[in-house]
């Protein structure tokens, strides 16, 4: 009897711990979060930038309780993704990668583009290189000659991006970059991990094939892999030993 009471008290204590834990998951009132490479919304400073099929929209969000539309720039059909870096926006479109500069006041200015054959293609970038996947497989809009590729584009001169190298992939989707490590999703064919230190000769470190990967978010050692059937979290603090941390099932 007493044992049961103690057990109940212990359980209650555990339960209340769990409760307070979930409540402690509160927000910091500052900063922005991180989206995947297929994102169409991104926040830079006081501005929210979004793309829809054919336009780039900017909103002033200086005041948390008042979003003010600033500008809608018509870009052309087939805008798919938006990626911010150092005051610039990289747009993945079906015809190529477009680079826009964010002006003071939140308007945007077209800088340059890198054109490729029509396909489906998100983009991520660092200071020197942009990585673009081109997917023809299963891409409804893919044009003739489209292929499944990863392209490395030199963006050290943002006015004239130049392709450095191009690698064959197998229906690539989203991708994520952490330092010199590139994570690349290939849908049912899993996730590839590359060392991209040498852009002319990127090195495949791992090919994880036991899950379906559409997009990734690298979070400094923790990788969120999004698939149609689950969210997988991987620990990549040791690149030689990437471990599954947990999985969240979808559609069960």
């Amino acid at each position, binding site marked *: 009897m007493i044992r049961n009471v103690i057990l109940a008290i212990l359980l209650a204590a555990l339960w209340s711990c769990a409760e307070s834990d*979930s409540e402690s998951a509160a927000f910091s009132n500052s900063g922005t*979060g991180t989206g*995947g490479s297929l994102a169409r919304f991104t926040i830079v400073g006081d501005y*929210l930038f979004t793309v829809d099929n054919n336009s780039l929209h900017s909103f002033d969000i200086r005041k948390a*309780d008042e979003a003010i539309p600033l500008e809608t720039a018509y870009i052309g*059909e087939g805008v798919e993704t938006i990626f911010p870096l150092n005051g610039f926006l990289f747009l993945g479109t079906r015809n190529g990668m477009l680079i826009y500069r964010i002006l003071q006041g939140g308007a945007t200015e077209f800088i340059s583009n890198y054109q490729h054959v029509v396909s489906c293609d998100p983009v991520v970038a660092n200071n020197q290189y942009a990585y673009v996947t081109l997917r023809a497989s299963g891409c409804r809009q893919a044009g003739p000659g489209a292929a499944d590729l990863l392209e490395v584009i030199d963006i050290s001169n943002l006015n004239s991006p130049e392709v450095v190298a191009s690698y064959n992939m197998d229906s690539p989707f989203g991708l994520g970059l952490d330092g010199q490590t590139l994570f690349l999703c290939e849908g049912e064919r899993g996730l590839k991990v590359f060392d991209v230190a040498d852009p002319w000769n990127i090195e495949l470190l791992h090919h994880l094939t036991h899950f379906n990967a559409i997009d990734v978010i690298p979070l400094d050692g923790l990788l*969120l892999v999004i698939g149609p059937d689950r969210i997988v979290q991987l620990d990549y603090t040791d690149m030689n030993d990437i471990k599954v941390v947990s999985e969240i099932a979808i*559609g069960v």
Partner: protein
Amino acid sequence: MFPGLGLSLLLLLSGCLDPKVDIPEQVTGLAPIYYEGDWRDIGAEPPQPIQELFKIYYKDSILFAGESLRGIHVIDNTDPFNPEPIKFIRIPGNSDIAIKGSTLYANNLSDLVAIDISDLDNIRVVSRVENAFSGLGAPLPDDYFGFFECPDPNMGAIIGWAEKILERPECWR
């Protein structure tokens, strides 16, 4: 009242004016996904299983998993070994989000909404920009050419399109 309907009607007209297309008995095409009820009604609900994942967003150890065109699953990931669903934020027609501080920006069909999520038990829409977007959500996908089920205005707002096997479809482009 029904974003996309005008466009759909235009499409319908332009489709039907084209005399060259033979209507097949059965064909795979797109059909509208209707939202029953007020699509502007945004709110927090108890956690629910993820049915169809769209995109995810991460902030302060909280994982926001987008349920295709329905809303956002909020998952506490303080312990990545044991992610714990804590809420579902209902945002009809949603396809993308971003968060600054404790304000979540989302498309609610073709509107942009700013939602204060500092208290997940009491979320509030603090700002709404009507018709901020044209191409998110309701209209027939720009890149789609083929048959589709003709929209029925009595069914409610169209929050998206899904593939469906259509019997003698009367709309196309």
